[in-house]
């Protein structure tokens, strides 16, 4: 212990002791290997064609789409949640709870409600997809700018208002769903339920580059986010324009959330789960250390669940459900143990 503090006396490290750094590095490597292994597993397991043949690659290609979907979803949820936690100064409330899922549900339900089952198909096109994303990001920007205006003195006010607005939108959605005939309702549910194996893959060419750009943008300002996490007074005293930085980050969060929700539907607790695990594994304030861990965790979790459920239980439709249930359970445990945000 004495040695450790002497060694650390020379420089200021992101990690408290070299042992912490080693643990982080090992976790990163293990997760990366697990990610690679699971990817290989999904591509090759039970592939009837001999390895390397044309048929093999055809089947692998269709499976690679699933892996890509999972990568996009994992990246979006992990980056969005960690960034959101940082700028809202809490580690419990996630962007999913703050009105995003509710808005997604409302937009889709409204489409089916007003246009019928045809409307559901209409919202599948690329143009309407982009429109949907723009509406969600615009809504989020408006909401956040309003919530972050000087009218609210603390973050908890903002979070509670956001959650309540989400609840209000949800009752509007429920009402419209009630008016649908059962067929239309089935079309809608397929959309509103998170489902990896039934993702709207036609959006992938747009979602992949957008998510990649936004995720790198967040990673590039990781050090700024370290400072933002100290709260508005300290961050301002250290020379950041806190309000502007926060809104920028929140817009990035809303883009990520819009991408993943329109791809596979809402997943309320995935972000919470991976962020919470990543904080305890990385055990540092540094976003450069937390973000990669969170992403890999999300990817491993989803591919792992997919692999097991598909090849062992033949129930790949249940992937999101299982992950959500675990996430919800972890949420309950964390809340009961911490008793604060």
């Amino acid at each position, binding site marked *: 212990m004495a040695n*450790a*503090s002497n060694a*650390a*006396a*020379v*420089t*200021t490290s*992101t990690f*408290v*002791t070299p042992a912490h750094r080693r643990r982080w590095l090992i976790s990163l490597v293990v997760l990366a290997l697990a990610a690679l292994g699971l990817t290989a597993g999904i591509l090759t397991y039970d592939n009837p064609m001999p390895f390397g043949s044309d048929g093999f690659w055809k089947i692998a290609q269709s499976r690679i789409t699933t892996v890509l979907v999972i990568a996009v979803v994992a990246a979006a949820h992990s980056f969005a949640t960690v960034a959101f*936690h*940082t700028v809202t*100064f*809490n*580690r419990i409330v996630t962007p999913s709870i703050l009105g995003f899922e509710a808005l997604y549900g409302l937009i889709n339900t409204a489409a089916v409600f007003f246009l019928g089952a045809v409307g559901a198909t209409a919202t599948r096109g690329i143009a309407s997809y982009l429109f949907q994303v723009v509406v969600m990001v615009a809504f989020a920007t408006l909401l956040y700018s309003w919530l972050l205006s000087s009218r609210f003195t603390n973050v908890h006010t903002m979070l509670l208002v956001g959650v309540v607005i989400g609840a209000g939108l949800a009752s509007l959605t429920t009402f419209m769903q009630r008016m649908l005939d059962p067929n239309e309702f089935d079309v809608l549910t397929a959309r509103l339920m998170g489902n990896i194996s039934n993702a709207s893959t036609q959006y992938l060419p747009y979602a992949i580059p957008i998510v990649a750009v936004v995720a790198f943008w967040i990673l590039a300002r990781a*050090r*700024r986010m*370290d*400072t933002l*996490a*100290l*709260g*508005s*007074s*300290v961050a*301002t*005293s*250290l*020379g*950041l*324009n806190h309000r502007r930085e926060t809104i920028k980050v929140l817009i990035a969060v809303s883009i990520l959330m819009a991408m993943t929700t329109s791809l596979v539907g809402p997943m309320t607790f995935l972000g919470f789960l991976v962020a919470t695990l990543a904080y305890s594994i990385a*055990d540092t*304030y540094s976003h450069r250390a937390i973000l990669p861990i969170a992403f890999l965790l999300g990817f491993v979790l989803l591919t792992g669940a997919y692999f097991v459920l598909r090849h062992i239980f033949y129930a790949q439709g249940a992937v999101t459900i299982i992950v959500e249930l675990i996430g919800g359970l972890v949420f309950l445990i964390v809340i009961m143990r911490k008793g604060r945000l």
Partner: protein
Amino acid sequence: MITLENVTKTYSGETTIGPIDVKIPSGGITSLVGPNGAGKSTVLTMMGRLMGADTGKITVGGLDVATSKSNDIAKKLAILRQENHFVTRLTVRQLVGFGRYPHSAGRLNVEDEQHINSSLEFLNLTALQDRYLDELSGGQRQRAYVAMVLAQDTEYVFLDEPLNNLDMSHSVQMMRQLRKAADELGRTVIMVMHDINFASRYSDHILAMNEGQVTHFDSCADTMKSSVLSEIFGTSVRIIDDVDGPLAVYF
């Protein structure tokens, strides 16, 4: 030099501050005193640009705090508020390292590490540098925050009630260290104080406020008079001349 020209602020509907016109010279320690709700912390917070003024202009060391770039201001002044609690767990050294953010944007170089070391040493925190903040006592934690502010290496240092939650010996220790910061490091320290005797013993100037107005701004010697203090605090105050200087008695 810090100048406030015609500064006003209205909040919570009724509380009004100002108009305030005052010039605080560079160097030494200036204490803001006055009864509760007088607006001391608000004025300090506005000078530290954490809160905007409704009207008027505030400059610190020639920089207009409302219009200058936040990072430029951060190299000129550092402000520490009372309540500081973080979501993330930080060690003392990591916290102090954040004080270097305006200079290095988070990538600490050799010079930054030197500043961190000397700041830790200055506040006797070297032995505690790898401890987590939540493992420290209130006094140690307060010292860690001040060390971060000093590591920021700014000409002006604003502190909101730095003695809050400190016991007697820690208060004395803190004030000596701040005095040293002013004398040896040449910092201009402005702080909100509750205890007039602590303020007068360690400050060069006293700025008194009452109901949002600056009612008195003078050297310590000229403030420590029965008539002046009685007016500032709205209760009768006697002065006893002690070997260490005048002492206010108010009970």
